[in-house]
């Protein structure tokens, strides 16, 4: 399906890398305009590189550069850093959060929004980010709502929300995806993840070649 304008709302730099970067590269290849609203700079992350090359003080700036590099690798045209504090999304004033997301929806009028599935995305920031997006989109009249695709990966998620209904074959975009993953140097030991002896194309395709999403269904 051809998407015109896509809004991605995720809380941490690197949330896009494994589950979404191939899909975004594919949509961009097909002509889509992508805005990625990243709620925080991941400044409370515990990974500092091995051996550590970041500190608590330098981490936000380093992760910001890593995110910019990832976006460039994917081809994302518009990155918005919303400036919320890492780990605190669930405690934020919901009005503040929803207003920011609502402004983006109004400004961009996307045909597709991508976020985390609230309740099934493990990290409280992921769940709270997804919940804010679902709440805000839900306030729009049903006929004006963009499609919302959710990422989910909690241990019990398939029992509760079933199998993903959207599957994208992103094998043609693995170069962009691997470059996105490798951009986040402080967070992922890419050598470890991708294999010191370079994974074969076949192994890469098996591991990273498909991306899965759940379309969020609003009760009618």
């Amino acid at each position, binding site marked *: 399906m051809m998407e015109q304008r896509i809004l991605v709302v995720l809380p941490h730099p690197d949330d896009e890398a494994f589950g979404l970067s191939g899909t975004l590269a594919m949509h961009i290849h097909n002509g889509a305009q992508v805005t990625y609203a990243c709620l925080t700079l991941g400044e409370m992350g515990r990974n500092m590189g091995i051996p550590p090359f970041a500190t608590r003080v330098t981490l936000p700036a380093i992760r910001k550069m890593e995110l910019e590099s990832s976006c460039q690798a994917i081809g994302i045209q518009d990155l918005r850093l919303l400036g919320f*504090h890492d*780990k*605190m999304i*669930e*405690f*934020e*004033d919901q009005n503040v959060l929803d207003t920011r997301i609502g402004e983006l929806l109004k400004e961009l009028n996307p045909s597709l929004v991508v976020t985390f599935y609230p309740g099934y995305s493990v990290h*409280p920031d992921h769940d709270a980010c997804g919940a804010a997006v679902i709440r805000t989109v839900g306030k729009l009249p049903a006929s004006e709502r963009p499609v919302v695709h959710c990422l989910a990966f909690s241990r019990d998620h398939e029992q509760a929300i079933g199998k993903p209904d959207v599957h994208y074959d992103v094998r043609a975009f693995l170069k962009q995806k691997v470059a996105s993953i490798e951009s986040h140097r402080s967070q992922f030991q890419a050598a470890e993840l991708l294999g010191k002896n370079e994974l074969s194309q076949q192994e890469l395709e098996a591991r990273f070649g498909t991306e899965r999403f759940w379309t969020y269904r609003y009760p009618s």
Partner: protein
Amino acid sequence: MQLIQPIKVQQLIDKLKDQELYVHIEQTTGAYAAHMDSSKHPASSFLTNARIRYSHGAISGNGPYRVGLKMTHGWVYSEGLTHYEDMETERLILAGHDSQGKLIVALQLSPKPF
């Protein structure tokens, strides 16, 4: 101490906002953590009677609970909270105890120093 009732704790968080408070925040693995299990890395820190003021705060989770308090220039955050002092009406006394009852984490707020 009683098991946390989130609604009661949220009421106290709301009551204490927008005023000068003293905070005690603490986290510890216990000094014997590495003695019991050499793979563990003992670590702890605490801060007593620092003065703060927050404009917004919430308790979250399904137990153990998390608390976040938003200040002008940052946040107070605590995870792993299980118990609260239900007799307190002017102070918030929260703690997290492990399966053996030992204190792992504490977060306390009061208009007067502890």
